[in-house]
């Protein structure tokens, strides 16, 4: 039973993850390392990585901040009625369920240049759709549930007693949060950060709709992969995909490593 289950697990991982990754790898280096490097060092690729990096950075910071705060609100704020919290709770997950295309479309419809909002922002020199802000908004939308979902159960699990202890020792809410709540949820938050980075890096549908896919401007690494596939540049596509995958794996492994170190101490 044990052996069988472990074997099946390995098999699933092999088929679903490892072989495909291997395939990406072999395709990326099928013309040798130089092809790989060349694909990555074209100005489009570099710019696309820059765009992706900017999106990921902003989205991670913003979502971490608001995600954690919302999670705290939903779990701890017992003055808000249970029903309302339950409702918000279900809404939190919706971006998962909304087709990213629609997420993107809504941003175009709500903030496109012909809408009131769009005109308003443009008048103040801020273009939203077909520019970075729109892409960031779309990614924020798509990745929002990740942080909340990671942090909420941890908050529930640690319970309120340590926090109460801090209050009785004279600490205010702010201090209690930093000194007591935060250390308890930080692994959850870190994991949420990792997932947010990963998902933001990989978002395709929503970004496609709001970006206009302008080379050297709004083209992200992911849409570049897609375009390279369309342009029969499989080596380039796979090289960029490999970098994205490798980045994600490294981040995931770093997290696991950090956790392990923490357990040891």
């Amino acid at each position, binding site marked *: 039973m044990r052996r069988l289950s472990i074997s099946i697990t390995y098999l699933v991982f092999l088929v679903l993850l490892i072989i495909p990754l291997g395939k990406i790898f072999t395709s990326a280096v099928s013309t040798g390392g130089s092809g790989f490097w060349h694909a990555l060092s074209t100005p489009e690729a570099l710019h696309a990585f820059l765009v992706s990096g900017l999106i990921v950075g902003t989205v991670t910071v913003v979502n971490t901040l608001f995600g954690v705060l919302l999670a705290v609100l939903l779990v701890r704020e017992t003055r808000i009625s249970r029903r309302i919290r339950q409702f918000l709770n279900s809404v939190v997950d919706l971006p998962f369920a909304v087709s990213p295309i629609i997420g993107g479309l809504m941003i175009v419809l709500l903030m496109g240049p012909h809408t009131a909002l769009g005109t308003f922002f443009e008048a103040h020199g801020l273009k939203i759709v077909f520019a970075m802000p729109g892409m960031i908004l779309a990614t924020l939308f798509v990745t929002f549930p990740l942080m909340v979902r990671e942090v909420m159960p941890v908050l529930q699990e640690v319970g309120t*007693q*340590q926090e*109460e*202890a*801090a*209050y*009785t*020792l*004279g*600490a*205010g809410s702010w*201090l209690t949060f930093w*000194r*007591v709540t935060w*250390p*308890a949820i930080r692994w959850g938050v870190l994991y949420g950060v990792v997932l947010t980075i990963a998902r933001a890096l990989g978002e395709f549908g929503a970004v496609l709709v709001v970006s206009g896919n302008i080379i050297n401007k709004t083209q992200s690494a992911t849409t570049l992969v897609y375009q390279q596939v369309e342009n029969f540049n499989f080596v380039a596509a796979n090289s960029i995909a490999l970098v994205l995958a490798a980045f994600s794996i490294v981040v995931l492994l770093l997290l696991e490593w950090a956790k392990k170190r923490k357990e040891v101490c």
Partner: protein
Amino acid sequence: MQIEVRNLTKQFGQFSAVENVNFEIQEGKLIGLLGPSGGGKTTILRMLAGLETPTCGDILFQGSKVNHLPPQERGIGFVFQNYALFKHMTVFDNIAFGLTVQKKSKREIHNRVLELIELIGLQGLHDRYPHQLSGGQRQRVAFARALAPSPQLLLLDEPFAAIDAKVRKELRTWLREMISRVGVTSIFVTHDQEEAVEVADEIMIINKGRLEQKGTPWQVYKEPQTPFVAGFLGESNLLSDTAQLVGFESVLQKRLAKTRVLIRPESIEVGREHEISNLAAATKGIVKSVQFRGTLWQVEVEVGEHRLIAHRSLEKETLLTGEKVAVLIHSLHLFQNDESLFLENELKRANTRAI
């Protein structure tokens, strides 16, 4: 700090967890909150701490209302039942927490914490994390943490519940000393009457959200005001039919129905005739069983229609089952309606005087 509580009530939905509780605690006293599970002890403590808002009633510290002060401004220390130590902090940091909050200087914190660590006897363990400590050690850290900011009032919620009996005995002696040394007003919750009796200056007995009685352990033992209190402190024989209780005839016969009589096993002397201190005040009985109870013999004896449990010293000879013995009831408690009466054996008194 002097504490006063007036008409304190807490409802959870329809359910009254605490109902109309009034008491006053003098500065420096150590009070034991005693009562069965679900009685409302924790709820009272949490209201005192500001962790729960009273439904109605007032809480006064030194004569001024604190109802609307948040916990961090009440100057209390709280030792939680399961300690609630900060898992991610070392022993040192746990104890230092309250001082850090007060923005004390590093040096001061260091000295005070080390002093407390010494006080609780955990020298050398200040770098450990809570999960690396045993239950008793954790308990002490929780205690030191609560004491560190020099609170005016120390609240302890079943500080010994999770500790084994042997260690518990040691810890409670230690705690008693510690508190009297620090001199802080303290309230501690316990299920355990032995513990309450042993540790507290005064005990308050809480049942079903109500304060049943408040007084020194000896007062409460000697003059229980309700059958509940009498029954809750120590084992007892509870009788409703009072015939055949030699030495109490005059009083018992005057009384009518619905009388309840409570006799403590330690108030019953059982033995062969020559052993009994005051044979005239005794009646006769038959030994039904004798059991070893660790520090004494527990003797079940049949007296007329009653079966009474009595204690007997281990140093006396062992009684045999079926043996005829003399039974002397030194005293009993009588409850009728709301009245409670402590009665001594009349014959014995008469007799003693006669001597």
